[in-house]
């Protein structure tokens, strides 16, 4: 491995490594440890609104550990949190699958399009991503509400008599997630499909396989890495989504991201919010880590 060798102009290599390491360590890693610490505390009326980790006794001596697992008990026992987590997982999963169904043909079409179309197609898919996420979600409010564009169009076409209630329901949240994250599903799929060696398909056809079989047995399995990458890229952030359920969902659409927000900002219960965050992290990240180790094996 080339690059630097120890002894060559010492200092540059170390600097290049240390700066990002320190920054990320301080502003990414350390905060998580703090979340963990605070999740073990108790919510109190003070600034900051949580009890300290180490309680120093009056007469001196060793500090006692002021850690309590109460918050975790609340999270695991109170129905609300479990429900909202499962809800979030469900909505994210359904949305991911719908996205896959929409994105795959699009990515496939892009991968097979004439070469000089592709940059334009890529641009067309990426452009919405660059325009504000918030704005695009907001746009759906105007479309899905009772007096919104969709209902207006459907009613003036005579397809329905009274407006469909879509806004402030789970349906709207699904639509919102699918819409917002779609480019993130298309791109990895496209990247994988584009690199696919079409001669393999030709070989399959040559050996007598009909096109649908060729697809099922050659294309689909070989595009699996793209499917997995796209799904993960979309599923995990979707579970923790806050903006979409808040703007498009109803009061009964509780997703875990919204719960964290409410506990933090409305109830000012930082320790509880931290505990929820940690639980969320464990539920989402653990399978990922295991999956990774499994893939590497």
């Amino acid at each position: 491995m080339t690059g630097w060798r120890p002894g060559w102009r010492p200092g540059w290599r170390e600097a290049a490594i240390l700066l990002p390491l320190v920054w990320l360590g301080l502003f990414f890693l350390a905060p998580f440890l703090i979340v963990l610490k605070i999740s073990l505390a108790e919510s109190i009326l003070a600034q900051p609104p949580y009890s300290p980790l180490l309680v120093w006794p009056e007469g001196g001596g060793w500090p006692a550990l002021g850690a309590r697992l109460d918050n975790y008990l609340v999270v695991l026992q109170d129905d609300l949190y479990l429900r909202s987590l499962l809800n979030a997982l469900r909505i994210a999963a359904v949305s991911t699958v719908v996205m896959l169904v929409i994105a795959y043909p699009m990515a496939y079409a892009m991968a097979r399009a004439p070469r000089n179309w592709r940059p334009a197609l890529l641009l067309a898919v990426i452009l919405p991503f660059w325009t504000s996420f918030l704005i695009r979600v907001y746009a759906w409010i105007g479309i899905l509400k009772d007096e919104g564009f969709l209902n207006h169009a459907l009613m003036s076409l005579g397809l329905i008599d009274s407006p469909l209630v879509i806004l402030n329901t789970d349906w709207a949240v699904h639509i919102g997630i699918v819409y917002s994250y779609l480019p993130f599903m298309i791109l990895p799929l496209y990247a994988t499909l584009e690199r696919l060696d079409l001669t393999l398909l030709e070989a399959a056809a040559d050996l007598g396989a009909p096109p649908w079989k060729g697809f099922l047995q050659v294309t689909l399995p070989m595009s699996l890495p793209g499917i997995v990458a796209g799904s993960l890229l979309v599923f995990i952030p979707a579970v923790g989504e806050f903006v979409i359920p808040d703007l498009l969902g109803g009061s009964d659409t509780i997703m875990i991201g919204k719960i964290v927000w409410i506990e933090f900002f409305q109830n000012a219960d930082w320790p509880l919010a931290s505990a929820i965050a940690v639980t969320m992290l464990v539920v989402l990240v653990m399978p990922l880590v295991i999956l990774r180790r499994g893939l590497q094996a």
Partner: protein
Amino acid sequence: MKLSPALLVALALGLAFLYLPIFLLVIYSFNDSRLVTVWAGFSLRWYGQLFQDAAFLEAAWMSLKVAVTSATIALVIGTLAAYALVRLGRFRGRMMMIGMVQAPLVMPEVITGISLLLLFVTLNFDRGFGTIVIAHATLGAAYVAVVVQARLVTLERDLEEAALDLGATPAATFRQVVLPLAAPAMLAGWLLAFALSLDDLILASFVSGPGSTTLPMKIYSQARLGVTPMINALSTIVIVAVSILVIGASLLAKGALIKGEHRAD
């Protein structure tokens, strides 16, 4: 390469789906009426109203400042991290750096938001412009690292070795060979971090302080009250501005590519 009609239809429908809301937003920003269902004629009044709203203008300015600053910091950190991971071989903390550079990409923002806020509270940092910049820079660095890493990986090691062989120190090699060749990717990374910062709601909400309201925060608080055409107008401006930027950037990139492709034989 054959493109069956079915696939073409799927692609067209998908693209229509992607662009319909944007299209509607733009149209209705010019609607003289408040209502989405009635077209009352072409009007620019909402744009007028927008430019007179001091709160909005302030928030826009704040967002711009934050975006430029955090994107630049993100560029430095992300590029260094990418270079370290691709070129500097095995070093202590490499595994950790890989994790820290990839995690922000998939982490739900509420978690990063809450953790950063708790950090600032613990350290007694006053929350405002600085803390938002730190939050956005940290997230942006991860995206910059991905983009720059992808470019560096295709950069042949030979080029750096050739520079070293010809008498350039590692630092000089980085400056004269790696940086110029990675520059397009670095620019793309900067733009990505810039767009992310400009658009971010969650992190900003968690770590901002009094007087440091960003544009998304303002839009959000307004949007919760319902659809206002003023937001449509703002949205249209953002969409048009971003579209010009992105299309312009990609045309530039294409032009650069074509120039380098003249061959003699």
